[in-house]
């Protein structure tokens, strides 16, 4: 994770230059995605933001809670990424009695923060 964190920053610089005149090229998109994953991880682990570790065990995080399931095999559990996003946006829709806060609906995370968290969680 640490290694990939450095390259995207360079890529973002390049992205800024390119963005003005070109449609986003495939190579640049993947760099931007890598950056979103890294940022998503920070937001997910931040106590005042996602604070996902309060309830979920996540690779790379310490002292995780055990209220929710460990976040593993996410692509297998959510074939459709939009469903994962919907779960984080407002988990009470699919699980009415859940303790999980509605991160999008209650604006705990901004739209962009939520998108990044989804990108990160989807890599797990």
């Amino acid at each position: 994770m640490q290694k990939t964190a450095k390259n995207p920053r360079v890529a973002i610089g390049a992205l800024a230059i390119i963005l003005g005149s070109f449609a986003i090229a495939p190579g640049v998109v993947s760099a931007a995605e890598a950056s979103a994953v890294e940022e998503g991880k920070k937001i997910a682990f931040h106590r005042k933001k996602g604070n996902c570790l309060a309830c979920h065990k996540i690779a790379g995080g310490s002292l995780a809670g055990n209220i929710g399931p460990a976040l593993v095999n996410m692509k297998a559990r959510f074939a459709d990424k939009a469903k994962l996003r919907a779960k984080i946006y407002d988990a009470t829709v699919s699980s009415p009695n859940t303790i999980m806060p509605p991160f999008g609906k209650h604006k705990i995370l901004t739209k962009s923060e939520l998108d990044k968290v989804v990108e990160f969680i989807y890599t797990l």
Partner: protein
Amino acid sequence: MKKLLLITAAISVLGAPLVSQASPEDDLKAFRGYFMERFPNVPLEEFANGVYAIDPASREQWEAIEEFPPYEIAIDEGEELFNTPFKNGKTYASCFRNGGIGVKSDYPYYDTEKGQVETLESAINACRTKNGEKPLKWKQGKIASLSAYMAYTTRGQTIDIKIPHDQRAVDAYEDGKRSYYARRGQLNMSCAHCHVDNSGNKIRADLLSPALGHLSHFPVYRSKWGNLGTVHRRFAGCNKQVRALPFKAQSPQYRNLEYFLTYMSNGIPWNGPGARK
């Protein structure tokens, strides 16, 4: 408005099956049964010890703390305050049954004259104003010390809160119950989410204590606070943690919540003041 609708919806969804029909007696049976089943090796009276009833590791530290209890000074201060006459020459003893010794077990109760739940703290301040003294601040300081002394003289008695056959008392109880199961705050959590559904689970590195017996040990010395606080101070802290606006200490909401929750601890010993993390 959206939020309000949301809260109302949450209350109706969560509260409906629990709030509507059951009598307080039925509630108590179900509530206690749930925890006895969830923690089959913990005897009922042990629930007076909160998270230390279910976690041997932290219990050891707690027992070490209890050897030199951090609330001891407060008990002494409370006793001194209790016995210091007001300007009119009377003392707190004049306001309470049995001279105020061992009477925390009388609270909370539904006061049919005042039409509200009376708590030990509200009775302490009522005693002061009746005797021409200014009321004390509600959440900590002298009131917590007085309450600690009075709790201390009540230790060993069993919690036995009554809900009289008065519709207003039942309404107060039901209101407290609804409050306990209602989602609130930006994090959209109810008290029950953590302390019923997830009691014994870990939220980050902290073990969630069971709701059964929660009201046995107040006022409490919390290491986090570095001093003693009343149960309404604790309620406010919980509300803030889920990013909800707390109610005022001794508001009807908190009085009713205390009424419901203490009733749910019936059968468990009074063991205040307590020490917690």
